[in-house]
Structure formats: structure tokens, C-alpha cells
């Protein structure tokens, strides 16, 4: 950097705003949508309820992976650790006569707690070390679980305790809990990004060393995201169990879950708030269309992740946002010239 003064540009008066009329409308619309979705089980059939549960689980996974990579700059390939842990913790609690649904809540909290010591280990790393470090943790957990006979060892186990609920009400409860989790974690991220911490996270993502040099507490910010993403993935794991009722270690600790998350986030838009939700919807639709041919569907998935990373790194939503200047969910600030204010994507 040069210390040389620039010729002073004529700076027009600016205003810094967060909310636009559109974003205010959209955010309240989003809140209303969540409220409306509470009534899905009453209004729609059983198939729809289960499909919506799946979709909401995907949204939760995508939003949480994006919290880590998009806002913390931390590419994890090990989020399946918490998916598996959340599911197995639920099973373990149910075996110890905790109500399954209460168990899912506790398992979520448990994942967040487990992540605390892990964060001290993992956050020493960046880039590839972090990516593969988290992956090794997930692999080690999978082996550890598969050695435990009480948890069904390598052959897997089911959440039989859910049978005490009638099938219909079970589906409804599962749906509502998934909706609750998704709304809670998405809302928590939204508030987090709007807090002072949010601005420092932005700074970290833009330039970690520079942020540290002006006193931004880099590790603290990353740690909160790490814990949030762990708990969120744990919740998604518990909901996957509730939705499928059966799990086995290799499947629930499969790196494919992270592959799905990466796909959803890259397609929707890494580091955008709305992108992962869109990515989850795309992923859900793709799975319905291509799901019959599992292999080609995965080839498309990997290929699309590559293509988006290389050619459209901001994803569908990020690109749209860039071109149009629209922000539906205001997590950043916008600087505007005071006089006739054309929305400039600058």
C-alpha cells in the first residue's frame, strides 16, 4: 500500500442503509411463510408432509454449511460427523428412556457441546488442513460408533421408540420439529450476521490477516460459526433419523452428506443468505427427477459443483444479486448516494 495521497475525489453525500422497502417486505414475508408452513400437515396429505420434511432438512444442512464456508471461510468436509452424531445420540438417549423427540433436541445441544473442544483443535487450521482434519474426525467417529454393539455396531440400528406414536402424528411431529429447527438455525444465523460479530465475520472473510491486524477477533467469530454449524448439522442428523427411522454408520457418516451440502451451497450462492435455500430446492427437485439413476445423478452433482465453483462462484443467487442489486434478506449494509439513487451494484 502506498501512503501517497490520492487526488480527492468528489464524494457525494452517502447514506448507509440496511433495509430497503423490498427487503423489509421480503423478510416479513419470510416470517409469514414459516408461520404458514406450520399448517402444512393440516392442509396437505401425508406424502407432502414427508417430502417437506426432507426439503426442510436439506435447507438446514445447506444453510449451516454455508454459515461455515460462506461466512467463516472454512470448507469442512466433515459435517457428516455431526449428522451421524446427532442421529446416534438420539438413539442412545432413546435407549435410555428419553422421549425420542426430546432426545432430538438434546442430541442437537450435545453436538454443539461436542464441537467446543473440537473447535480448539480444528480452528488452528485453514484451507485444506481444516477440510481434511474435519473429515478425519468424522471417519474416526464412524469407526468408533461401529465398534459399539449397543448402538448396533456396523449393521445399524433403528429408532424403535418412535413406534409409541401413531404414524400420522409421528410424521406431523417430525415435520414440525424439522420446521422449528430450520427456522431456529436460519434465524440464529440471520441475527448473528446482523450483530457486530457479523461485520467482523465479513471482514474475516474478505481478508483474514488484515482483519486480525485491525483487532478483529478472528478465532472467536469462527468458533461461534463452528458451534452453530455443528449443532445445526446435528439437528439435521436427528431429523434424518426421524424421517427414515433406520441408520447405519457408513451411511449416516457418509461424506456424501457434505457433498450434498457443497452442491446446494455452490449452486445457490456461497456466502449469500438466500442462496443455500434456493440450492436446497434445486437439489430436492433434482433428486426427485434423477433419483432413480443414482450414479448419473451423482455425476451431475459433482460436475455441477465443479462448474459452479469454476465459472459461477457466486452461484445462482449471488450472481442475480450482483447483477440486480436486490437484497431480500438484509444481512449486510448498503451504501447509497443520497441524490437520485439508482441501485448501483458496486
Amino acid at each position, binding site marked *: *500500500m*502506498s*501512503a*501517497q495521497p*490520492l*487526488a480527492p475525489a468528489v464524494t457525494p453525500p452517502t447514506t448507509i442503509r440496511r433495509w430497503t422497502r423490498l427487503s423489509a417486505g421480503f423478510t416479513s414475508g419470510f416470517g409469514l411463510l414459516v408461520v404458514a408452513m406450520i399448517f402444512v400437515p393440516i392442509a396437505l396429505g401425508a406424502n407432502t408432509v414427508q417430502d417437506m420434511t426432507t426439503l426442510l432438512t436439506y435447507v438446514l444442512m445447506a444453510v449451516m454449511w454455508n454459515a461455515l464456508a460462506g461466512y467463516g471461510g472454512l470448507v469442512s468436509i466433515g459435517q457428516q460427523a455431526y449428522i451421524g452424531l446427532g442421529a446416534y445420540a438420539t438413539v442412545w438417549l432413546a435407549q435410555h428412556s428419553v422421549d425420542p423427540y426430546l432426545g432430538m433436541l438434546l442430541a442437537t445441544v450435545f453436538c454443539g457441546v461436542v464441537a467446543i473442544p473440537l473447535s480448539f483443535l480444528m480452528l488452528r487450521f485453514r484451507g485444506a488442513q481444516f477440510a481434511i482434519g474435519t473429515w478425519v474426525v468424522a471417519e474416526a467417529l464412524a469407526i468408533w460408533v461401529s465398534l459399539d454393539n449397543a448402538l448396533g455396531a456396523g449393521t445399524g440400528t433403528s429408532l424403535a421408540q418412535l413406534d409409541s406414536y401413531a404414524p400420522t402424528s409421528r410424521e406431523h411431529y417430525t415435520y414440525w420439529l424439522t420446521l422449528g429447527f430450520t427456522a431456529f438455525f436460519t434465524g440464529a444465523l440471520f441475527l448473528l450476521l446482523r450483530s457486530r460479530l457479523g461485520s467482523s465475520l465479513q471482514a474475516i472473510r474478505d481478508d483474514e490477516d488484515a482483519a486480525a491486524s485491525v483487532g478483529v477477533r478472528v478465532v472467536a467469530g469462527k468458533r461461534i460459526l463452528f458451534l452453530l454449524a455443528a449443532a445445526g448439522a446435528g439437528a439435521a442428523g436427528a431429523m434424518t433419523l426421524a424421517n427414515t427411522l433406520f441408520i447405519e454408520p457408513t451411511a449416516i457418516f457418509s461424506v456424501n452428506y457434505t457433498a450434498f451440502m457443497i452442491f446446494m451451497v455452490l449452486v445457490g450462492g456461497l456466502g449469500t443468505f438466500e442462496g443455500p435455500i434456493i440450492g436446497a430446492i434445486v437439489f430436492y427437485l433434482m433428486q426427485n427427477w434423477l433419483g432413480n439413476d443414482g450414479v448419473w445423478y451423482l455425476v451431475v452433482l459433482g460436475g455441477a459443483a465443479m462448474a459452479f465453483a469454476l465459472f459461477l462462484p457466486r452461484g445462482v443467487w449471488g450472481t442475480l444479486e450482483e447483477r440486480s442489486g436486490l437484497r431480500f434478506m438484509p444481512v449486510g449494509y448498503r451504501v447509497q448516494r443520497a441524490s437520485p439513487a439508482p441501485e448501483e451494484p458496486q
Partner: protein
Amino acid sequence: MSLLDIEALNLRHGLLEAVRDFTLSVAEGETVALVGANGAGKTTLLRAIAGAHRPSAGTISFDGVDVTRVAAYRRVQMGIALVPEGRRLFPALTVEENLLVAAQRRRPGRWTVDTVIEAFPMLARLRGRRAATLSGGEQQAAAIGRALITNPRLLLLDEVSLGLAPLAVEDVYRSLASVIAEGATVVLVEQDLTRAAAVADRVVCMLEGRIVLEGAGSELTREQITEAYFGLRRSQALDA
């Protein structure tokens, strides 16, 4: 015809304009010294001529060929060599390896590992030493040798005396003087105004990315250069 033609060049670092609307021609065999305060854009300009910095506007022609979009490593093969600021030897390579790496795509000419070591005798006993273990003056000699070995038609020198002991500076310039005497075309950036004026046919003084004063090394007075250096003449120039 001139060897180097820079036409309306603009260079940026992000939003910062380092060099603005810069035009300069250097004739074959000429030695031009660029002087100016820190941040005047001299280093950026040399890096752009060498191809390490992509201009935002303007053209750079070398021997009549537009090289504005030519990659740095190809410009080396065309005959442009830069001795970068801070020497930038490959620290874990030996002195000889540093020379050999550059010699691989060398143009035909008189400079080889042996002739470079002849010109910088201090390198003889350092051939097998890792570059990181050399003193500043030794590193500078090796860095100049590494540029010469490509047999450049245009040699760009960025602050070769920076951080060196006075004696080492003498050594480096004595060796350079013979290179220049042989008719090499040189553009150099030098903080030491006296030395710049002594070695160069022409002195170009830059301020905030523009040329504010230009003249033959022997004709410009120290006062003139100093004024230009600190921008004292700028208001006059703007009035004129």
C-alpha cells in the same frame, strides 16, 4: 527507432492509480533513470514493462512490437529482464542454480554462468551456497547476474542500492558501469539522485504516477530534481 515505447499507460492497484497517462520512449543504448519519492509509481512501472503488472490502459511496445498483453516469461525471451526490488533470489536454490534457472531460456549472447561470475568475481566462491545465506551485496550481484544471463536487450533495475552498505553499492555500480559502457539499454530506479544523474543519459522524475521533470543527466541540477521530487514545481506546472 526507440527500443521501448510506452504510450498513455495507466496502472492501478485496485482502486489506487499508481501510474497515470504515462508516455516514455527509450532509445537503443540509452540509460534512463527514474527518480521520485516512494509511491510515485516507479516500481509498478518497471513491473509493467517486465510483464508482471497488467496495465488498465495504454500500450507498451518493445522493438516495435506491442507487448502489452504478452506474458512476463515471454518478454524475457524477447529480451526484457528485470532485477526486482528486494532482489528476490530463490532462497533455497544455490547461486549457481539461480543463474541456471534464468539461463534456460536465454537468448544467444555473451552472458553465461561463467561470464557472469567473471563480471561479479565475488560470486565465484559462492556458487554452491544457498541464496538465502548471502549478504545483501552478494545477493544483489547474483540478482543482476540472473537478469544479465538471459542476455537482455533491455535491462530494468529496481533500487539496486537499497539496503546495501556503501562499499557494496560501489561494487555493484562499478560492475554495472561496464555493462552500460558496452551499450546495453537500461532503465533504472534509483533513490540516490547524485548516482542516478551520474550513471544515466536521461533522468525522468515521477510524482504521483506522472512525469514532472525530464532532462539529460548532465544538464539537470540537483535543485531542479529535488524540487520535482517533492512536488514543489507541481503548482507551476499546472499553471503553465
